[in-house]
């Protein structure tokens, strides 16, 4: 019976080793802040509602070269809830935003069903278009959208 006994002891030892490791765990809470924004629209410039599949405020920590670039790091995008259509002014709030510098920010319109069918319709332009999100602070921004004067996309180098 010596062999089974040794196996039993080995099992107990292995159990102890294995039992001490719990595997994956929640990551440390990242430092976060929030964004509050006001969007002013040129009310006369609104296109027909059926040309909008979606409308959001989007903040990027990088300047995209084209819409494919958006896919290259989709997880880095900060995205507001859907915005209202046909209004003169709208507001939004985004909580739990990772702290950092956001360099390309604005309102984006989804004009088709595809994941890449997006274009900017108005950019945040204060402070060179750049804002910071600081830990536990709220960053206030304003964006002006005129659908008759769309910003160039991809942005000029």
């Amino acid at each position, binding site marked *: 019976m010596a062999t089974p006994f040794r196996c039993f002891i080995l*099992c107990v030892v292995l159990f102890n080793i*294995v039992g001490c490791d*719990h*595997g*994956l765990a929640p990551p440390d809470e990242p430092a976060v802040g929030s964004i509050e924004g006001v969007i002013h629209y040129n009310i006369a410039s609104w296109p027909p509602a059926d040309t909008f599949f979606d409308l959001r405020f989007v903040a990027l920590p990088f300047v995209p070269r084209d819409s*494919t670039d958006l*896919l290259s790091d989709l997880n880095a995008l900060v995205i507001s809830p*859907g915005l209202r259509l046909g209004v003169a002014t709208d507001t939004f709030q985004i909580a739990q935003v990772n702290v950092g510098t956001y360099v390309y920010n604005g309102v984006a319109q989804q004009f088709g*069903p595809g994941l890449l069918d997006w274009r900017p319709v108005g950019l945040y332009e204060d402070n060179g278009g750049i804002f910071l999100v600081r830990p536990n602070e709220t960053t206030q921004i304003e964006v002006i959208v005129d659908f008759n004067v769309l910003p160039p996309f991809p942005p000029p180098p």
Partner: protein
Amino acid sequence: MYRSLFLLVWGCWLAASVHAQSGTVIGTVVERDGGPLPGVNVIIEGTTRGAATNIAGYFEINNVAAGPQRVLATAIGYHAEAASILVRAADTVRVNLVLTPQTLSTDEVVITAARREQLLQSVPLSLSVLPAEALEARPIISLDDALRYVSGVQMADNQVNIRGSSGFSYNTGSRVLLLLDGMSLLSPDSESISYESLPLAQIERVEVVKGPGSALYGSSALGGVINVITKDFPSEPELDIRMFGGVYMPVRYQSWRRTWNDADIPRPIGGANVTYAHQLSDQFGYWLNVAHRYDAGHLNFKQERSTDIYAKFRWRLSPSLHLTTLSGWTRRKADAFLYWNGLDDPLNPGNLGFADNTSNDSPNGTNDNLTDRVMLHLGVSHVVHPSFFYSVKGRIFSALIRPLDEEKEPRSVDDGTLGFRYGGEVQLNWSPSSDQFLTAGFSGDALATQSSFFQEADAPPLIRSQPEAGAFAQWEQMLGSSLNLVAGVRYDVYQIDAGNTEQKVSPKLNVAYSLSERLALRGSYGQGFRVPSLAERFINNQSFFPIVLNLDLQPELSEGYEVGVRGNTTISSWGIVTLDVAAFSTNYRRLVEPTFVPEERAFQFVNLIRARIKGLEAEVAFTAFNDRLQIHAGYTLLDAVDRETNRALVFRSKHLLKAGISSQLVGPIELGIDARFASEFERVDTDFARFVPDADVVSPIQVVDVRIAAHVSRYRIALFARNIFDYYYVERPAILAPPRSLLFQITRSF
């Protein structure tokens, strides 16, 4: 003082009275030829009384309680033998027992290696067998649960990976061929495997061939073949009812539970299986298997419910001619959890792009479907002569997948997938002499699938098809009593698009050399290939990811070499050790990977990878006390390299270890422990992590399952703790594997 004296007197009286109420059992244990058997364990069942036979086969057991008793004699290599006796007080009873030699477990018969029955010991390639006992002892709810216990096999959620062949390809295009009694069960659209849709209670064994196997089986046997062999029919009617129920325990981290209310309570799982089998006469036998299962899932939107009905019939039209049918229908309603919402919220599915993410609405990290599968397998076998028989088989396997609407009702088939795999084969087996075998045949199959995933939005339904035909031959030649040579080749031709055909010739060469009855060397060479599934070629969809079709996909190719040794030895008279060691190397070309193609602005399945996977595998098993103690361990070392970049191949672990103990040493109680370990993936695909948060998070796997069971009358009652240490890990990117779960199972045999 008086108290001690009283106890002493009482103890003496008790001992004397026991002695007075007991008798002695003597006798001999011999072989069938009358030769004495020394070292045989002889016990009085249900007691601790026992003895071992001496060199003359004689034993003597004293102080056996008076009354009816059963004497049980066990020895390694022999069938156990029992005798009922009546022991009278102060008397001696004589009992003589004859043991018959037992076929050692290493003499298991397998069928997959050569498309004919042969002894496992003489198989010239790596093949693992999961017998029915191993399936019944464990909490096997679907086949992938069982495959996780096989050495060299790693599951990536529901995708099987034999010796690193598969990695993870988003459940599309299996590089391992799954057969049910020789019939392919790969789905006709994506060629994925549905592990839960099998008659688990009627599985005789599962054979796992490791290494390329296209020389006998054609496409998809790129990395190996899994053949599920169903049971034959018992002479006496057998009815088994099995019910199980249990729960996934809540995860320990409150931060993971906070975004899903149901995460705070145990999530139920349960089901029932009824199976009946009977050989009605020499001419007719059948079994039926009905199963229902509900799984609330350990993740939000991972609920599923399934019902399976399987039946097998056999008519012996004459002693040499029989017809077999195997048919099945399964229905599965399931939320398919595709990817998590990040490591800080792994219990909820994530969202792609800009959609809102709440735990109340169905996000696009899930895909809810109602799936119906129907299969029918017809086979005729005719033994023309003791040395020659042939079989003719026909098969059809269909899958209907319909997405569910918000009310959880199935939508039209035009919004889903309807596919058929159908065909047949003829196989001849001829043995011109006892040391020569010829196995040859031809087959024709076709896939025809209509899927909303294969067409542009709002376009009419489109049927995609893929006919295929093949012919194979294999010659086995024994040279003397020790050397076995096997040479085979298969020719396949596929029409992968209108007017576009592919051909493939797949040779194999095996050598086995028996150094003794218990030790055999082997060497093998084989090729494998896999024609991309219809889904990989034609999928064109934006619903979950932007994916575009690729009509230029080429078949994947593999070429493998292996040398190995398999042997066994007895330890004293009570145990046997078996050992299998193999060194292998497989080269892969044109492996298909889903890759983000910038110019397409979408994912696409492309022939991308040239790889080499080499490694070592060692399996050792120890069986003792007439199989009542079983210990096994298997270790696999993998060196998987992407030869284009010279980096590690994605989604492969370098080290795999499986180990387990099963014991029935204490009365009717069974105890078992199974452990599986895998090192962290050497590398992961970062394209997926562009879309899904923390999809590049990986972990080692360290899972231990424990079970305890008891046989009481005709009941078997079992309690299982799966992942008992509540270890959190991922088998594939962005899906947390199940936490600790507890299951209770009761089986009644009639």
